[in-house]
């Protein structure tokens, strides 16, 4: 059978399930009696096994099967959760992830059997006799388990009592015509209702196989309920009904379909000619029923005897609320209607929006050139402006994903680190739901991992030291994410050792990064920033966790490549906080356009604090550097004309326009010649040739087709 079209879905969903298992098992480690958690684990493991089996990945299925057995015993209370078991379970998850990786790369699961892990899992099962007999909790667990299976049986009973569901298919006029003419032509027309086992995971795949089976037998699906599109999207319960026109024999077909695995049963019968006409009455009856009050139900009930076709809708109508009652339905409605879209398609869409904004900007400048203001044109241009802005926002929103997808693996990582380093520690995360552009989320994982490893390795002290310092023995690492204006801030904080500024300075001297004289002049902040220098590592022993000296400078360059910034705050003995600040969007920003000499530059509005008019006489010299005193704060002045090596001579005049920009806590004033105004700009890469120009983060195309450079104010000071 061909399941390759489901491979993508399988990979994605298995990934999610594994992540979920990781999280749940972590919880279980903390709260071994958490029943909800055990149920959830069992469910995820079961789903995993089912999917692996369906896709034909036998080894993966075997491994998950053994894992599921363990969970099953845990659920029944016959095995108690212990740390050995958790370790084995994590190993199992790692092995499953490896399978998944191999499948993703090669389309096949590979040949690794993971015998050792399977043996460990089976050992756990065998040991269950030695464990204390299940307590009350176990017993109630069992009850819950049998309850669940009872539910399942009821469900099945419901389904079968529904009878031949195909009789209740609603037909539209054209379908009626097709069926009627087929019957008149003497072709075989019959209805089929196919029930899929309610444990089936890839329902759509099964349905697809049933369709294929019918086609192979020379049949043609004339009508399906729900529609074939809905079936493909898995928008159906565990049954679907078809009306088939063709040459196939009903009994053969039923047998063939039953041969497909996970098909519960097939019901069917020939469609009589009057079915088409009867349907109208049936739908009328339904309409009546809907219109009538519920007490009339009893009157409709006897109807089946006289009007057999009408029975099905009536029965169904009565059943729907009952089904909702058993609590299964609400769970399903939680699932959002989503479409998986290739990220490349979104990129194309984003590029088109960018083009549109450039075109809009051209239109704006063209409509202003004429001098003569045409109010109708202006109105339309403004309307266009608001539409393009909304369009941009919508597309950005589509590209936003919660950072959850990268951070969920961290608790597990910290747990492993804690074991490996022999230091007790906990990770607390908040704001996992904070959203960022997909491309940023994909890139942010590694830097965050580096910082967390850094905190775990260098930050958190050993339990003994912590005790001496009067801290709780278990170290805490926090990962907090939140939105702050047009930025997203991610903080990695620990209550560990903090940064030893003297150690950093000594190391820097040793490494030749600074001379001893320079070091003595460094402020604490400047010294800490030495950590981000390439090839710097203060760990005295190089461990395989961190301390290869590649960590922090890589973190910094990666974050900066995303137009973000990193900052450290630390207090020796109390802990450190690493603050990552990232822009919400990468492609289109609001910018202030300025003129320096005869050239136009764009400065991101996000980094601008204020714009000031400054007199020449307000500028003072401190240590030979120009500064201004702005409402009590001394701010260094940077003349863009000098920094940008502007070729045209400076203008005469006593007043200067100074743009105050910020970088973290630092501020600086940029002197420009003229302000143009605020504009939405599309960021374009400058290309390889010019990437040496660090202070230029990109370029943009203005309304008149001219290229303006975007200043990276962070690189200026």
């Amino acid at each position, binding site marked *: 059978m061909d399941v390759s079209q489901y491979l993508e879905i399988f990979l994605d969903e298995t990934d999610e399930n594994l992540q979920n298992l990781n999280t749940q098992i972590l919880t279980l480690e903390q709260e071994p009696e958490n029943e909800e958690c055990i149920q959830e684990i069992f469910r995820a493991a079961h789903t995993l096994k089912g999917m692996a089996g369906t896709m034909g990945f036998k080894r993966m299925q075997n491994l998950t099967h053994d894992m599921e057995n363990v969970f099953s015993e845990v659920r029944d209370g016959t095995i108690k959760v212990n740390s050995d078991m958790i370790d084995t379970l994590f190993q199992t998850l790692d092995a499953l992830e490896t399978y998944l990786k191999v499948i993703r790369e090669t389309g096949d699961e590979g040949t690794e059997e993971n015998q050792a892990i399977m043996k460990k899992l089976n050992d756990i099962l065998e040991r269950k006799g030695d464990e204390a007999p299940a307590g009350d909790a176990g017993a109630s667990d069992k009850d819950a388990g049998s309850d669940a299976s009872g539910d399942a049986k009821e469900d099945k009973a419901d389904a079968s009592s529904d009878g031949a569901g195909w009789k209740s298919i609603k037909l539209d006029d054209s379908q009626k015509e097709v069926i009627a003419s087929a019957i008149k032509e003497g072709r075989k027309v019959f209805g089929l209702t196919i029930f899929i086992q309610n444990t089936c995971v890839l329902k759509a795949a099964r349905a697809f196989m049933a369709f294929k089976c019918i086609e192979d037998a020379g049949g043609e699906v004339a009508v399906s309920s729900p529609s074939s599109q809905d079936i493909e999207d898995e928008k159906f319960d565990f049954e679907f009904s078809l009306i088939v026109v063709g040459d196939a024999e009903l009994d053969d077909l039923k047998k063939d379909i039953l041969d497909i695995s996970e098909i519960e049963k097939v019901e069917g019968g020939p469609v009589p000619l009057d079915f088409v006409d009867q349907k109208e009455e049936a739908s009328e009856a339904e309409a009546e029923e809907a219109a009538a009050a519920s007490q009339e139900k009893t009157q409709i009930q006897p109807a089946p005897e006289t009007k057999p076709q009408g029975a099905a809708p009536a029965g169904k109508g009565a059943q729907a609320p009952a089904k909702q009652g058993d609590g299964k339905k609400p769970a399903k409605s939680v699932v959002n209607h989503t479409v998986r879209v290739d990220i490349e398609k979104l990129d194309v869409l984003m590029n088109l929006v960018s083009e549109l904004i*450039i075109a809009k900007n051209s239109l704006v400048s063209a409509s202003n050139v004429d001098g003569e203001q045409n109010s109708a044109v202006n109105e339309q241009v403004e309307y266009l402006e608001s539409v393009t802005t909304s369009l941009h926002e919508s597309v950005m929103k589509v590209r936003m994903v919660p950072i959850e997808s990268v951070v969920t693996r961290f608790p597990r990582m910290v747990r492993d680190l804690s074991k490996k380093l022999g230091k007790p520690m906990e990770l607390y995360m908040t704001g996992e739901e904070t959203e960022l552009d997909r491309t940023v989320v994909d890139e942010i994982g590694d830097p965050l991992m580096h910082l967390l490893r850094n905190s775990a390795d260098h930050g958190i002290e050993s339990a003994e030291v912590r005790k001496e310092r009067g801290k709780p023995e278990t170290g805490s690492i926090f990962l907090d994410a939140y939105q702050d204006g047009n930025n997203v801030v991610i903080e990695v904080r620990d209550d560990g050792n903090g940064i030893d500024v003297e150690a950093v300075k000594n190391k820097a001297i040793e490494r030749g990064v600074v001379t001893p004289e320079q070091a003595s002049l460094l402020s604490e902040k400047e010294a800490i920033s030495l950590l981000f220098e390439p090839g710097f590592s203060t760990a005295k022993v190089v461990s395989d966790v961190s301390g290869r000296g590649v960590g922090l400078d890589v973190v910094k360059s990666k974050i900066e490549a995303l137009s973000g910034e990193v900052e450290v705050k630390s207090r020796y003995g109390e802990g450190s906080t690493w603050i990552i600040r990232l822009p919400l969007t990468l492609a289109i920003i609001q910018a202030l356009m300025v003129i320096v000499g005869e050239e136009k530059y764009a400065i991101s509005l996000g980094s601008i604090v204020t714009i000031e008019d400054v007199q020449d006489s307000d500028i003072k010299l401190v240590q030979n550097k120009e500064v201004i005193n702005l409402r009590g704060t001394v701010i260094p002045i940077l003349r863009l004309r000098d920094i940008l090596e502007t070729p045209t001579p400076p203008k005469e005049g006593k007043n200067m326009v100074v743009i105050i920009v910020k970088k973290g806590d630092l501020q600086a004033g940029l002197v420009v010649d003229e302000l143009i105004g605020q504009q939405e700009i599309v960021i374009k890469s400058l*290309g390889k040739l*010019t990437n040496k120009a660090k202070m230029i983060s990109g370029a943009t195309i203005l309304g008149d087709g001219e290229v303006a450079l975007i200043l990276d104010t962070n690189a200026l000071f």
Partner: protein
Amino acid sequence: MEENVMNEVSVAVTEDSIQYIVIRLGDEQYGIDIKYIDNILRVPGITRVPKVPSYITGVINLRGEVVPVMNLRLKMGLEDTEFTNSTRIIILRTEHQSMTGVIVDEVKEVVTLSSEQVDDVNHETNSEEVRFINGVGKYEGGLISLLNLNSVIGDSAA
């Protein structure tokens, strides 16, 4: 504004022959393999980029993309001159690089050179110019230095 040089001359292309666009820099003729050429433009407005090597003139807007432009004269160690009416920008697209524009004094013609018409260059002479040359083509009595685009464009990225 764009010139379609390629259609002006139709030449028979055989398997071991390569088509080159012949350009002029000062008094010398150079050939650029036609497969790398995306476009030939008159000089549009160029935006200067600060703090880059002097041979990089700046960036231009090419159909909504920002493309860096280098002055081939400066890159080859020749003197800079004013742009004239025949100055052109050739937009190159090499395998590993994105688009790059080079400013040349003049675009002359398209020639087809078979492998017999191309001589190797003696690379022992370590002059600046030879680094950028792949070979020398003989065509109708004249000599055409065939540019090694990877070293012309690639070097500057390092």
